[in-house]
């Protein structure tokens, strides 16, 4: 970890200020002025997740957040800009709190903030940074697994947008200390009646030597919501990061390109994502692994299905910078309608001898042979098609504890039911 000097605060501010109009490298450009900033304490806090309305609880459940907190190691809920609920009393292995609280508690945390995600990346990171620096808006969560601990149950975190035209920002810091194991389910959703809103989530994830994090994210946005997550992951020696991402509900536009830095010896990063494009969603989703550590391994697997008038850009990027690293990229897409499209961009970059990197990409329509095979077993054509699509999207979720794997599979099934 590089220690920043005392000027870091000023740097963040000035860097962000300079980048506040900087367009992102990818994705539709969003006018931030069309959205409103909410104060950090606009909403009342709640004592129990069960106090939420039935509809809200149901939309939480869809993104994997269980109001009963069964088999959970903790819960965090941010609605618009307010952290209305935190339960950190379930597990002794895990610390969970609002990022503002954590920054007050731990002076060392400064070193982890705006470290692997830069405030001047684009106008969205700049916006989040300026709200922190100028307005003192510290929203988002801090999760930390203590050294040597292995909590099998996941921490659940939910980002919810409840009000019209809100620009929600969050800055999350996740740290797995040495030889610890941490599982997270994060769900993002909006209220049913929201016709326009925006979410900017900055996440900086740190894995210390020998640790493991699984990060499962389910998105369930509304048709007119703009989403710009900005995520980086630092992976130390012998540490493993597994990222599962599921999106199958409409969204106005989403652009994200999380980057894992496999800096440690034998560090490992696995990204698995399922993207279902419906209606006129524009989804630009990639995963990037930078292999800097000896023996590091990266895997990027994505499945995209485009329906209706949706557009999906499925990106993947592996960069091998030292000998002995290995990487594999797999990007498969199905285009189900004439008005939808998929643009698959797999990139491999090798800047050292003696490394192994490969990719496979295939984009097309549903295979007629497969449909015919199933109809010849008595399955109606329409059912055969949906079986093939579901099968196509059905990935083995690796690395999760049994129960969480089952739960994730159920979430995927539930998400796909809506398609």
């Amino acid at each position, binding site marked *: 970890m590089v220690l920043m000097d005392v000027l870091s605060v000023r740097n963040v501010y000035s860097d962000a200020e300079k980048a506040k109009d900087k367009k992102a490298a990818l994705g539709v450009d969003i006018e931030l002025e069309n959205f409103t900033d909410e104060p950090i304490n606009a909403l009342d806090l709640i004592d129990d997740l069960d106090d939420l309305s039935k509809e809200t609880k149901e939309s939480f459940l869809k993104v994997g957040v269980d109001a009963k907190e069964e088999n959970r190691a903790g819960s965090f809920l941010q609605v618009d800009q307010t952290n209305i609920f935190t339960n950190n009393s379930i597990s002794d292995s895990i610390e969970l709190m609002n990022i503002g609280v954590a920054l007050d508690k731990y002076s060392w945390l400064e070193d982890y903030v705006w470290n692997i995600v830069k405030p001047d990346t684009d106008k969205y990171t700049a916006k989040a940074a300026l709200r922190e620096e100028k307005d003192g808006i510290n929203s988002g969560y801090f999760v930390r697994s203590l050294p040597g601990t292995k909590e099998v149950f996941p921490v659940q975190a939910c980002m919810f947008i409840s009000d019209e035209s809100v620009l929600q920002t969050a800055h999350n810091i996740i740290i797995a200390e040495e030889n610890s194991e941490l599982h997270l389910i994060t769900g993002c959703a909006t209220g049913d009646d929201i016709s326009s809103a925006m979410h900017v989530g900055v996440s900086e994830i740190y894995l210390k030597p020998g640790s493991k994090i699984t990060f499962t994210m389910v998105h369930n946005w509304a048709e007119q919501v703009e989403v710009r997550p900005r995520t980086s992951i630092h992976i130390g020696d012998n540490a493993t990061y597994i990222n599962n991402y599921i999106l199958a509900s409409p969204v106005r536009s989403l652009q994200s390109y999380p980057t894992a830095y496999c800096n440690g010896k034998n560090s490992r990063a696995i990204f698995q994502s399922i993207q279902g494009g419906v209606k006129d969603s524009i989804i630009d989703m990639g995963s990037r692994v930078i292999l800097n550590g000896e023996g590091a391994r990266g895997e990027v697997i994505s499945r995209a299905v485009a329906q209706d008038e949706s557009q999906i850009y499925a990106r993947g990027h592996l960069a091998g910078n030292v000998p002995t690293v290995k990487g594999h990229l797999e990007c498969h897409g199905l285009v189900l309608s004439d008005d939808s499209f998929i643009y698959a961009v797999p990139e491999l970059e090798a800047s050292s001898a003696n490394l192994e990197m490969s990719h496979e990409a295939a984009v097309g329509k549903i*295979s*007629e*042979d*497969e449909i*015919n*095979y*199933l*109809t*010849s*077993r*008595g*399955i*109606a*054509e329409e059912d*055969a098609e949906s*079986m*093939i699509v*579901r*099968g*196509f*999207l*059905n*990935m083995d979720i690796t690395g999760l504890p049994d129960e969480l794997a089952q739960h994730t599979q159920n979430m995927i099934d539930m998400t796909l039911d809506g398609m």
Partner: protein
Amino acid sequence: MLLEIENLAVEVSGKRVLKDINLSIAEGETHVLLGPNGAGKSTLFLTILGFPNYNVVNGTIKFKGQDIAELSTAERVKLGIGVSFQTPPAIRGVSVGDLLKIISNQDVNDELSPRMQDLAKQLKFSDEFLDRDVNLGFSGGEVKRSEILQLLAQMPDFTMFDEPDSGVDIENVELLASEIGTLLDKDKPQGARKRSGLLITHLGYILNFVSADKAHVLIDGVISCSGNPTEILEDIRKNGFNGCVECAQCLQ
């Protein structure tokens, strides 16, 4: 007649593959379809199944007395037609076990029925195998056994087998033949058999284990001769398919 094909002509991508096929198969009968590569044997199967792109330009196909021209593949299968493919496609994310449940009208959330579990064991499939994606990375022998297992889940009245023994070792041919026998009511006395079948075979090896009532030789889109399977096979082994062409010519 269970299956009755009259004056059938079929085009695939504008090319006439089947020219004038006449074939009748009665209840309880097993027929064999022989012929050189490219003669149209698989085309006949896929036409009976009603696959898209197989355009019937003349003639009729009747199954159980009903003209099936307007029926979809799934509807024909529901009527009692089944098929085992020579090289079926892999389907990612669909497990053998789930497909078996769907074919045997079981709820996919229930456990596989004891009958299907027993059959899977008989065909040397482990529980682990049932979790695998259909045909994905299967060996030649596994493909054939999985096709037969699916048919046992379906128990069609009329089953078409496309090269069920190609690429299968001797030991497994006998195993497959015994299950094919089940699908063709071979365990019953001849007069009591109800299920029928049509078998495509190149070498006729499977016929050492599955008895057939009649053989047909398909050459260039036409059935050039029909008759006793043993005699016809012997003739082909001696004279090749040319003998059948000559035989057809002398019939005219």
